[in-house]
């Protein structure tokens, strides 16, 4: 197995406010997020010579953002993609540096996901018209991500006896985490009853099973381990990366193999193989929570529990702060805000640095109380290894393992 384990690192992270009405362009937000990440790394604009972004026709490309920051690029690339792009682009940035194309890459995602282009939105807030094979779905009314995922979830409940109440614990855990996050859109803790009592969107998804559409920009900076050691923060190294791995016949994945199997089935050997570790070695996870169910399905597919036992795993307390392996400690897409995966990697970088931006007065210096009561601490004690599980539509996924 080829591996670049520990030879690249994430040295800077930054984000704008999470809001539902930014009143700004994606260009202005991207510039702010990239600038913050550069400052976080202790670098200057002259140190960044690569830039990547991902989008779905809803954002501003790198070659408009870089000039606003006074950055001249040796490499840039804007790709089409949503969830699961973050981890994949970190791998591609490592590849660009490894190939000698550039030395330090800023990766950003900027979107007015609430005020401009909504998932499954209509009218002026509708996304671009769907093209290609997806057109075959139109007569059947398959229009939104929630619909596309729902059939996978229904089958999981049928095959394994998974219940809405079990899966609601994902929202409960992430709301607990968000209550310790000053940036989070939704800071109020919710109960299982709140989730299963909220209105139906698309069976088996209630309103509170779905993430929060958000306006924001996020950025992280990738460079070599040698340069990482000269940067201001404690280095966070990439142990393994996989992306965007997909199931057979991505377009009609249900026609091939069980739909309860997700892309992690194929990605796990790649990412754990590079890292030389297993699930039991991971201290913190960031399992993509476009929906409560996506978090659960990925955790079981990557081996954090046996296949089919995800419902029991996510409702056992394990994924909550104070539990054995907390998931999405910033609140994730369900509570902090929807960023197409970037915020979950940013959070894990901060966890490994020990400088999570919670309500602890000494947080920036790594001084935490580890009191997980509302409005207090969300730092995981001595977190050494963190893993991100990114997901895009049912058949595609990415994964990333980081260590301090």
């Amino acid at each position, binding site marked *: 197995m080829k591996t670049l384990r520990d030879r690249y690192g994430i040295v800077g992270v930054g984000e704008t406010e999470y809001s539902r009405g930014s009143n700004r362009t994606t260009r202005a937000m991207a510039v702010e997020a990239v600038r913050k990440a550069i400052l976080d790394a202790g670098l200057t604009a002259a140190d960044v010579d690569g830039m990547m972004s991902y989008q779905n026709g809803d954002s501003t490309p790198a070659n408009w953002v870089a000039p606003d920051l006074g950055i001249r690029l040796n490499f840039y690339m804007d790709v089409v993609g949503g969830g699961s792009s973050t981890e994949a682009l970190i791998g591609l940035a490592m590849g660009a540096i490894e190939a000698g194309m550039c030395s330090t890459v800023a990766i950003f995602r900027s979107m007015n996901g609430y005020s401009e282009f909504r998932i499954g939105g209509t009218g002026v807030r509708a996304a671009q018209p769907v093209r290609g094979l997806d057109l*075959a779905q139109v007569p*059947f009314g398959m229009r939104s991500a929630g*619909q596309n995922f729902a059939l996978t979830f229904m089958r999981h409940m*049928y095959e394994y006896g998974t219940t809405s109440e079990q899966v609601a614990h994902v929202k409960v855990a992430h709301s607990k985490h968000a209550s310790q996050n000053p940036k989070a859109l939704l800071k109020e803790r919710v109960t299982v009853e709140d989730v299963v009592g909220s209105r139906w969107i698309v*069976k088996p998804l209630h309103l509170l099973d779905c993430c929060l559409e958000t306006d924001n920009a996020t950025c992280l900076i990738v460079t070599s381990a040698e340069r990482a050691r000269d940067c201001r923060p404690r280095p966070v190294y990439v142990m393994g990366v996989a992306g965007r791995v997909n199931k057979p016949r991505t377009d*009609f994945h249900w026609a091939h193999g069980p739909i309860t199997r997700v892309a992690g089935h194929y990605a796990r050997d790649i990412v754990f193989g590079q890292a030389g570790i297993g699930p039991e070695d991971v201290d913190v996870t960031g399992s993509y929570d476009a929906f409560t169910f996506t978090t659960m399905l990925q955790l079981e597919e990557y081996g954090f529990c046996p296949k089919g036992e995800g419902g029991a795993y996510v409702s056992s307390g394990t994924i909550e702060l104070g539990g054995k392996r907390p998931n999405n400690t910033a609140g994730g897409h369900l509570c902090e805000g929807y960023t197409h995966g970037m915020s979950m990697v940013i959070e894990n970088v901060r966890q490994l640095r020990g400088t999570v931006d919670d309500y602890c007065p000494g947080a920036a210096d790594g001084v935490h109380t580890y009191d997980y009561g509302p409005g207090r601490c969300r730092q995981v004690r001595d977190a050494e290894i963190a893993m991100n599980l990114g997901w895009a539509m049912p058949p595609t996924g990415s994964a990333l393992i980081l260590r301090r």
Partner: protein
Amino acid sequence: MSVREERPIPAPPVNPETRPFWDAAAAGRLLLKRCAACTQPHHYPRVICPFCGSDRTEWTEATGRGTVYSYSVFRRAPIPYAIAYVTLAEGVTMMTNIVDCDVDAIRIGQPVRVVFKPTEGGPPVPMFTPA
């Protein structure tokens, strides 16, 4: 029995590769692609067999009988409707809707049969109803 309000169905896109499928649908017949080399049927219709790579794929008529593999009910629509994956007797699974029934009574594993529903200015689309 009250008159059931039906969701207007957008016309499916018809292209050179899928025209035989839609022409047959207009005649009330459900077609699948079958590989002449490895005999495996598949759906959505492709030019190359996804199992063995042969370019010898041909159209074959399906019985129109199957079972619900999974389904969901979209509630955020003016007229709620059920999207489903139905596994046909021939072994392939296709995206469809379950229609002409109480959407809350649909169950995974339930037997269904094909019906063709008119669309807005296009060929009828194959949907399924409890058998």
